[in-house]
């Protein structure tokens, strides 16, 4: 599903490596916490997984595709099969909730009737069906993050990565967001969640990847 072999990453030619010698495999359908101090490289690692950055060294394999041998033009199709949730949501502020969630379907060129059916269903799943016509700015942080999750899963991705999805939320909102991610896992999606929130990790024990200064210090 996800395979890293001797992966290194640096931002710029002469910059230091922020990820070093990463080697691990994430089995299909697994759930992993991604842990580590601030600056350890969690975001960088997730960026490699959702093709927002390319490794400067080693081999990253996502959904069976070895990225070092993949042309840039082939990446968009792969990106559509990976769902991403960000700490700061990254909703488009000029579009209402419905259209934000519909975005991946429109990018993929789905038919309008299918878009309407899929978006309606997924908004019901995250509990925001009544807010379909609201603008993102009119929603609470927790609601915005649930919209972002709806957008990330509306294409039924095989891999779902979340970068501190609860970082901006209070505990009840965070629990609700996390229960959605866990449900995706239960439905068979491979899920990776980077977090600082030790309370949530304690509430939901699962396998973890722990980073320290760009190195993998534990896996399991």
């Amino acid at each position, binding site marked *: 599903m996800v395979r890293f072999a001797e992966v290194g990453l640096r931002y710029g030619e002469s910059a230091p490596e922020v990820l070093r010698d990463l080697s691990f495999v994430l089995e299909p359908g697994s759930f992993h916490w991604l842990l580590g101090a601030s600056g350890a490289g969690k975001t960088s690692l997730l960026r490699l997984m*959702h*093709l*927002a*950055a*390319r490794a400067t060294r080693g081999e990253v394999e996502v959904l069976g595709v070895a990225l070092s041998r993949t042309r*840039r*033009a082939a*990446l*968009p*199709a*792969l*990106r*559509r099969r990976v769902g*991403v949730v960000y700490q700061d949501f*990254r909703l*488009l502020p*000029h*579009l*209402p909730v*419905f*259209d934000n969630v*519909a*975005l*991946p379907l*429109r*990018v*993929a060129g789905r038919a*309008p009737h299918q*878009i309407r059916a899929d978006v309606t269903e997924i908004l019901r799943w995250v509990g925001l069906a009544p807010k379909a*016509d609201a603008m993102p700015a009119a929603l609470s942080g927790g609601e915005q993050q649930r919209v972002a999750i709806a*957008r990330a899963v509306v294409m039924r991705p095989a891999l779902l990565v979340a970068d501190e999805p609860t970082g901006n939320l209070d505990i009840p909102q965070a629990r609700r967001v996390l229960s959605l991610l866990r449900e995706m896992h239960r439905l068979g999606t491979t899920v990776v969640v980077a977090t600082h929130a030790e309370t949530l990790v304690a509430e939901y024990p699962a396998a973890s990847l722990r980073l320290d200064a760009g190195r993998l210090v534990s896996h399991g």
Partner: protein
Amino acid sequence: MTLRRARGRDPLGLRRVLSDRLLPALVGAMGLLAALTLAGARGAADLASRWEGGAATALTVQLAPGAATDRALAVLEAMPEIAEARLADPARLAALLRPWLGDAIAIPLPKVIELRLARLPADPAALAGRIAALVPGAQVEAHGVWVARLLALARSLQAVAVAALVLVAGIATAVIAVAVRAGIAARRDAIAVLHALGATDADIAGRFAGRVAWLVGLGAFGGTVVAAPILAGFADMAAPLSGGRVAEGLLDLPWQRLPWAELALLPPAAALIGWVTAQVTLRLWLRRLP
């Protein structure tokens, strides 16, 4: 629902950042310039070809009334510069002079020989001198000097018009590129989100290019529409110069003399420039994304 569908087709919010005011207005002004320049080039070309024809028959040789013309015609025909020497029809001459001399022309008319030249002489005055020497008693009218100069002027006007057209197209490209860059800057985050969701460069660039082509085409169309009556007015003012008459009303203007084919090409040509400029600008910018 219509609002939602309209927004759905415009996820980058380009209707806001590439507004339907500024860009079309700028391009409209340039379309107007282009149309005027185009018509100028066309007019200069028309005048040049007309004068070329006129210059070819530009020399006339006048002999005294009653003079024998056969020998003069033979001598003139023999000159290499002269393609044809022809005796002007006395009836036509009389008709030309009627306004001044009246119906009953009492005075004897001079014999007039019209010369068609093989090509425009470099020095018409010298040619006139040689003709006068070969045909005794001839008066040579060499207004070809002036026609040749006007012709050169018309040709350079034509060249200037083409250069101006190229310049306008270049400025339009620059203006469009600036507008597209401003659009990218305003929608940087949205572009990044679309890219992250798996949109291809072609998809994102195509959305910009479609919007820009539409706005630019619209602006150029507006400029052309504004230019049309101005051009018709010019054509009207020029009409007497080529044997026409001045119009009495708007509908009477010489609309059919406008370079319609070229004018009709302006909006699509502008739209194409806009489309290509947006595509190139976007694709270069998107290269920085992984």
